[in-house]
């Protein structure tokens, strides 16, 4: 997947100065809370979360849909938040890693990642956990290791913690 394409700098929040301000109002639900944003059309959901709402648990890795660090749930399904515009999500329910724990209690997927030591540097972990939550009760994805690996293949771990990530996912699914 990785190619030698030129990656543009992290400039999503610096709209083309030659264009007049063209912000759009978008209302959505983030981790159960109603949120109204005033954003330029070119702000991807990832940048809206991190830069406008201070929800920095969702990470920016490749910014091109190749690494999965930015995975969030959109209406319950995992998605790359770097490849979707915030303005496209009027009325949608977004869940980020900050929305997993409830009332001081970790989500079962967070518990499983802790228990299985399913991370090293931790940069990909939020994305890994969001993909796991998305497939927790998805019976279309088989319970064997090969099926789980395939379903999780959109989440890259540069440290190579895959063995323990797989254990954590399997453990969380078995208990779900």
């Amino acid at each position, binding site marked *: 997947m990785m190619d030698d394409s030129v990656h543009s700098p992290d400039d999503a929040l610096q709209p083309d100065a030659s264009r007049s301000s063209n912000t759009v109002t978008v209302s959505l639900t983030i981790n159960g809370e109603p949120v109204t944003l005033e954003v330029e059309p070119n702000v991807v959901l990832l940048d809206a979360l991190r830069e406008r709402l201070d929800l920095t648990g969702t990470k920016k890795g490749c910014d091109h849909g190749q690494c999965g660090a930015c995975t969030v749930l959109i209406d319950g399904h995992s998605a790359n938040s770097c490849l*979707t515009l915030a303005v496209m999500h009027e009325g949608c329910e977004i869940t980020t890693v900050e929305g997993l724990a409830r009332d001081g209690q970790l989500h079962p997927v967070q518990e499983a990642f802790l228990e299985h030591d399913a991370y090293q540097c931790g940069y990909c972990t939020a994305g890994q956990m969001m993909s796991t939550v998305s497939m927790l009760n998805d019976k279309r994805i088989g319970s064997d290791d090969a099926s789980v690996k395939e379903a999780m293949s959109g989440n890259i771990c540069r440290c190579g913690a895959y063995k323990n990530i797989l254990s954590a996912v399997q453990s969380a699914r078995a208990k779900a």
Partner: protein
Amino acid sequence: MRNFDYQRAGDVAEATALHGNDHSADFIAGGTNLIDMVKLDIMRPERLVDVNRLPLTGIESLDDGRLKIGALVTNTDLAYHERVLADYPVLSEAILTGASTQLRNVATTAGNVMQRTRCPYFRNPARPCNKREPGSGCGALEGINRNHAVLGTSDQCIAVHPSDMCVGMQALGATLTIEGPGGTRDIPFEDYHLLPGDTPEREHDLNDGELITHVTLDAPIDGARGHYLKLRDRMSYEFALASCAAVVALDGDAIREARIALGGVGTKPWRSHEAEAALSGQPATEETFQKAAEAAMAGAVAHRDNAFKIPLAKQAIVRALATVTAQS
């Protein structure tokens, strides 16, 4: 990423009216390919018309046995749809070998049909590319071309078509329904993607302001089985080096009807009528499969790094046919 104006359409008529046959406007659905392209500065829309609210999310069984798929059906929903699993397993397999869970959850049926090549020369504005900038030359012809096409190439472009889903559809046969300023029209799926020839910038038979609204699969071939075999550098989340969609109906030990389409080797999702002719009426044996594979790849042209794709594709064809006929 450069900025653009944004408009949200509620129905098909509003979407085509908002687009208004404007060369600088694009429709956006899932956006997984388009936003990547805008970030790379390869696509530079001045205006995006969001079609995600259009009522094109359904899958409908028609009375004549065909399956009508709304343009906005996600790759995930299409792959797991009960009619697709039952009657078009080759399509389900093809979709599920492509991309990642996150991308399949968002990418749409029509968006997949519209997706652009992954050629690194096309994706890098600093390199020459006749597809991106007609007349600038082709960096891949004399460059690093291990992943490039061996079928349907020209001296202007050897970019490979990246889709798996389209290869499944090519084997099954399908019709695209297109809505635009000139009204509604249907075109055969096979005629939609264009060979590069002297105009590699023209990738498909779609005019400004036209929108794909449906993909309708042909009725399943009676008694046919299907299989999609994808060969790639790693087991998951990787584009095909060579892939084969095989749909075969047997009559005893003989092949009554066969459909063969190839991915990873063509400049468009590649239907091989030559392979199908070599299979029709013949015994379902490895010898027959070998002849079909030779016929499919007879016109292949290799460049410096991709000659391996020709035997690889032949092996994919033989193995896909062996698998699909062994199921009976």
